[in-house]
């Protein structure tokens, strides 16, 4: 655990993402990267939506989507949300409360990671009927974070 934290610190420092240390251009770049990752996650969620609506998405595609969501979720508290990238930086919709309530935000990120892992595991069994419940948990994890920490997009 301690080794992991140390490595994360070194990585963060190495790419210049230590909270408060970013220059304006870097902050805009982080926001752009965050948007790109979030758009990847939205594309994965769209596949899940197509599955729920019986619009042709397969269990395997839902599984691949779960992996994408988990991958992005694990970056939330490391590289995607450095301090200084709130509303006002580029096209950011991140509320400042993310950093004043970092524990809450981190818990949401952990919840989403766990939910996506669970969904990925369930898709491995290949049973379409078993997917709805873990999908609901994934969507609610996203929604809980958006409810508290995203601005300007109902």
């Amino acid at each position, binding site marked *: 655990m301690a080794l992991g934290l140390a490595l994360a610190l070194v990585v963060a420092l190495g790419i210049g993402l230590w909270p408060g240390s970013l220059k304006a251009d870097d902050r805009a770049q982080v*926001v752009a990267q*965050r*948007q790109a990752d*979030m*758009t990847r*996650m*939205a*594309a*994965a*969620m*769209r*596949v*899940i*939506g197509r599955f*729920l*609506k*019986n*619009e042709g998405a397969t269990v395997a595609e839902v599984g691949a989507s779960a992996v994408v969501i988990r991958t992005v979720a694990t970056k939330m508290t490391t590289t995607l949300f450095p301090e200084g990238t709130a509303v006002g930086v580029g*096209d*950011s*919709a*991140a509320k400042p409360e993310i950093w004043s309530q970092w524990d809450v935000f981190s818990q949401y990120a952990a919840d989403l990671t766990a939910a996506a892992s669970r969904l990925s595991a369930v898709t491995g069994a290949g049973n379409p009927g078993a997917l709805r419940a873990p999908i*609901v948990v994934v*969507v*609610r994890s*996203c*929604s*809980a974070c*958006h*409810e*508290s920490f*995203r*601005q*300007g*997009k*109902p």
Partner: protein
Amino acid sequence: MTGGAGRTPLGLGRWRAVSALAVSLFLSLAMMSGAGKLLAGSRVPSQAERVARGQYLFDAAGCFGCHTDEARGGQRLAGGRALTTPFGIFYPPNITPDPIYGIGSWSDAAFIRALRHGVRADGSSLFPAFPYTSYTLMDDGDILDLKAYLMTQKPVAQPNRPHELKDPFGWRVLMPAWNLMYLDVGPLDTNPHQSAQWNRGQYLVRALGHCGECHTPRDWAGGLDKRRMLAGNPGGDGVDASPNLTPDIETGLGRWSEADLSLFLEMGLKPNGDVVGGTMAEVVRNTTSQLTLADRKAIVAYLRSLPPLISTLPIASRGNAHR
């Protein structure tokens, strides 16, 4: 009894005729008054059933979200979080059954009057931050079932926080005039030219769900612009704009399928893969996700029947899914 033998056949016939007329009249009145349901085989609901109905109505009407300061750990229904509006800050009151600080001492008539006419138990006017302009459309039975449920909640002796409003918007004495301009007293009439599903959807959207309160633009005095009902509101919930819910192809929900709308109401997932945020996330969590599938479908049927109106607001399903 004298001469009865001679009058009985005629008298009995008259009596039967009068009895038949009376029974017929009673049945007609009973059917018109709603008691017909009982005569047709239903029965008076038990208190437990009324409370259960009231709980469903409580969710459908979204009472929890405004009357509980959830984010700050407030006690259930003991008074809500600050509602920031152009007119100042409203603090939704305590609606627990506490007899002093809540609504525990309110009569049924007082509760109906509050929702139907926007008048408190003490006779003073409510402000329309409490959406009585929508709840007025509820029928009496639903209002009383809602009250039955509220009376089962834990009483909390917590005083209400005074609103912080700009003059003259904080002057309650002006509210009767405001009501003359903007309050169309209910209940909602059934449209006989539409299906039962459509009428149910209209009731859920306009009365219980009070969707128009956020999704309809308001004028300078805070009244809804009824010509643009559900066409989107830049002021929205006081924080975020609320999008156009009419089926306009370019600026509304015209490109959303019935399945898209139903899934959104169930869990907040949009067709572009974005997930709902802001106050609407709370609405999905506390209200629309708690409805039956039939009620969600009724909402969808009603929304899709609305006349399409063009809005200048951002479209819910386009643009970057996340920022």
